[in-house]
C-alpha cells in the first residue's frame, strides 16, 4: 500500500483530547496541525477549492461524529421497487473516505467532500455499541467498518482497531469484520480478539489490482497479511468484489482462488462474498474522467432495476457460478454468498430459494459463534 501522509491535519477542538487524536498527532510529528471549532465549513468548501480529489485527500480532518456511528448496511434498502438479497449487515462509520484510489470506488460519487475524515470521538462510538449490541443480547450482529472507509488503511496511526477489537472480544452476540485492501495489520497481532473479529480482504487478480486498484497493497501483500492474521488466531474472510469481466477473467480468478487457498487454510476462512461490478451511472462518468485508462466502463453494463449499472445477467450469473464452483473445489466448507444481488440470480447460482436477509446474516454469524 502506498503510505498515506497528510499535508495537514485539522483537529476539531471537541476531539482534541480523544485517544484517536493523540495517536494520530504523535504518529505524524512533522505534519502541520490546525485546530478548528467545526469542520462543517471546511468540508462544505473543500470540493470547490481543491483542483483534484487526490490532492484534497492530503487533508486529514479529525472530527466529532455528531450523528449515529452504527447503522444498518445501506444494501438492505429497497431501491426503485427493487429488492436485492443482502446479508443483514451493520456498519460502523468511524471514518469517511479512503486515500487509496480504486477506479471503481463508489465513494468518489457518494461523498460530498473530498477530505479524509476520521471521527475521533471513539468513546461515543463505544457507548453507542453498548446500547445497540450489548443491550440486545438476543439479536446477532455482523458489523463492519469498511463501508465509507477502508477498515485498516489508516490504522497504523489512528489505532482505531484497538478499542473496537477489545469491545467485540467481549460480545457474545456480535462479530466485527475489518475489511481492507491494505496490509496494515500490525496493531491486530497480539490483541486478545477472542475470535470475535474477522479480518477480511477484498481480492482481485493482480492484473486488476495493478490497473484498477491504485495505491493499494498488492495481492501478495494482502495474502501475506492474511497469513499473519491466521497465525494470530483470527478468522479471516475474502471478498471477491467487484468481480471484473474481461477476456482472461476465468483464468485469472481461478488462479487467484487457487493461490488464496494454497496459503490460507479453509478452516480459517469465515466466509467469502462474491459481487460482480456494479455502479451508479454517475460513477461511470467519474471513472471515465478520473481514470481514462480504466477498462471498467467497457464492460457490458446495463441499467438494473436498483438503478445501478450491472453486467448483463447471463454474464454475472456465469461469473458467480464459476467462482462458487472454484471456491467449492478448494475450500468446500466455506460459506459463499453474493452481495446485493437480484433474487433470481441468487437462486440460479445457489440452486435454492433465496434466503431472507435475516436468515443469511444469521447463518454467517454462526460460522464464528
Amino acid at each position, binding site marked *: 500500500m502506498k503510505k498515506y501522509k497528510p499535508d495537514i491535519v485539522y483537529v476539531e477542538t471537541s476531539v482534541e483530547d480523544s485517544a484517536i487524536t493523540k495517536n494520530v498527532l504523535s504518529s505524524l510529528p512533522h505534519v502541520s496541525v490546525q485546530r478548528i471549532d467545526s469542520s462543517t465549513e471546511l468540508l462544505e468548501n473543500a470540493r*470547490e477549492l481543491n483542483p483534484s480529489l487526490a490532492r484534497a485527500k492530503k487533508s486529514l480532518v479529525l472530527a466529532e461524529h455528531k450523528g449515529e456511528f452504527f447503522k444498518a448496511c445501506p444494501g438492505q434498502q429497497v431501491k426503485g421497487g427493487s429488492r436485492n438479497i443482502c446479508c443483514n449487515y451493520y456498519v460502523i462509520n468511524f471514518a469517511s473516505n479512503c486515500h487509496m484510489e480504486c477506479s471503481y470506488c463508489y465513494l468518489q460519487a457518494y461523498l460530498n467532500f473530498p477530505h479524509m475524515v476520521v471521527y475521533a470521538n471513539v468513546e461515543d462510538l463505544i457507548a453507542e455499541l453498548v446500547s445497540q449490541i450489548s443491550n440486545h443480547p438476543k439479536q446477532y450482529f455482523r458489523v463492519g467498518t469498511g463501508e465509507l472507509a477502508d477498515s485498516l488503511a489508516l490504522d497504523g496511526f489512528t489505532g482505531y482497531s484497538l478499542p473496537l477489537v477489545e469491545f467485540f472480544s467481549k460480545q457474545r452476540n456480535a462479530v466485527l469484520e475489518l475489511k481492507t485492501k491494505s496490509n496494515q495489520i500490525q496493531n491486530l497481532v497480539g490483541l486478545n480478539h477472542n475470535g470475535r473479529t474477522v479480518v477480511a480482504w477484498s481480492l482481485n487478480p493482480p492484473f486488476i489490482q495493478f490497473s484498477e486498484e491504485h495505491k493499494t497493497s498488492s495481492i501478495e501483500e494482502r495474502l501475506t497479511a492474511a497469513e499473519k492474521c491466521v497465525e494470530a488466531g483470527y478468522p479471516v474472510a475474502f471478498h471477491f468484489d467487484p468481480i471484473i469481466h474481461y477476456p482472461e477473467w476465468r483464468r485469472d480468478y481461478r488462479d487467484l482462488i487457487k493461490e488464496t487457498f494454497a496459503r490460507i487454510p479453509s478452516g480459517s476462512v469465515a466466509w467469502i462474498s462474491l459481487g460482480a461490478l456494479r455502479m451508479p451511472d454517475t460513477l461511470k462518468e467519474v471513472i471515465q474522467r478520473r481514470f481514462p485508462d480504466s477498462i471498467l466502463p*467497457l464492460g457490458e453494463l446495463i441499467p438494473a432495476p436498483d438503478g445501478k449499472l450491472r453486467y*448483463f445477467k447471463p454474464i454475472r450469473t456465469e461469473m458467480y457460478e464459476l467462482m462458487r464452483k472454484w471456491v467449492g473445489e478448494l475450500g468446500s466448507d466455506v460459506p459463499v454468498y453474493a452481495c446485493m444481488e437480484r433474487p433470481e440470480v441468487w437462486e440460479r447460482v445457489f440452486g435454492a430459494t433465496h434466503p431472507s436477509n435475516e436468515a443469511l446474516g444469521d447463518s454467517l454469524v454462526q460460522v464464528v459463534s
Partner: protein
Amino acid sequence: MLRVEDVDVEDRTYAVTPGWFALEKLRESIQTVGLLIPLRLETDAVRKLRLISGFRRLKAAQGLDIKEIPCIISSPKPPREVFMEALWENLACRSFTEVEKGVALNKLRNQFGSEESELIKEFLPLLELRPDRFHLERYLSIGELPEIIQKAMILEGLSTDIALGISRWRKQEQVLFIELVARYQLGRNRQKGFFEMLRDLRKTLRTTASTVWKQVGAEEIDKDSELSPQDRLAGIHRLLRAQRYPNLTQHEEKYRKLRNSLSLPSGTKLDVPPYFEGSRVSFTIDASSAGELRNLVRKSKDLLDRQELDEIFALL
C-alpha cells in the same frame, strides 16, 4: 465615419466571437436599416486602427461592400482595461455562447494576465458560470477546441460534453463524428448514444473510430442510397450496438425469434422485463368488448403447450 480599409481586420486582440460566426441576420439588418451602433476602435501609433468591439458588424459590412462605417475612436488605454470594456459591452447586449465564454476566459488568462483565483471568483460569475475549478477547466478547454469542433458546437448543435470527448480523437475521427451529427441532425441524446458506442469500441478494439465505423459495416449502410436516412441511421445504430453489447443483442435476438414463432394473436402482447432483469414475463390481452376478449382468450389457449414459453423464461 471611418473607411473600412483603415481598420486592421486581422487584429483580433479583443475579439471573443470566432470569425466564422453566422452573419445572415446581421447582414439583413444592416441592409435594411443600416449600421445603427457604431464600432469602437482604439488608435495605435504604428498600426492601423484596432477594433475593440463590433467584429461581426465589421465583417457583415465588408460582405455588403460598405465602404464607410460609423465609429467611436478611443485613445490608447491598458489592453486589459479595453478588453474588459469590450466584454462588458458585449455581455450587456446578449448572452455568450459556450465557445465565446471559453475564448474570453482563455484571453483573460493568456493575454491579459488573470490569475486562476480571479478567473474563478470574478469572471465565471460574470459569464453566468458556477465559480469552481471544474467549470474553469471545462471552459478553458472549450475555448481551446479546434475550430472544426467549435463550429460544430455552434452550427450543428454538437453537445459540449461530446465536443470535449472527440477533441481527444484524431482529426479524421472528429470529422467522421461531426458529419454523422450534421447528416442525420442528431439531437443530444442520440449524439450521446453514438458517441459512447464509438468511444468504447475504439478503446476495446484499440483502434480509431473511423476503423470501427468500417469494421462494423456502418460505412456501407451510411452510403446505401436506397435506404431512407432514418433506416440508415437505425441500421448503423444496430451494428454498433451489436458490437458494443454482443451478449445482450444475441439474447434479444433469441427472444425476438421465440416470440415471433409463438405467432401471438393480434391484441395480445408478451413482455419481458427491460434488459431481462427480473423474473416475470407479462402477457397482456387488450380487447374493447367482452366478445373480443373471449375470442382472444380462446386463441391464446393455443399457447399453453408451446415449448417456446419455457425457453423465454429460461432467458430471464
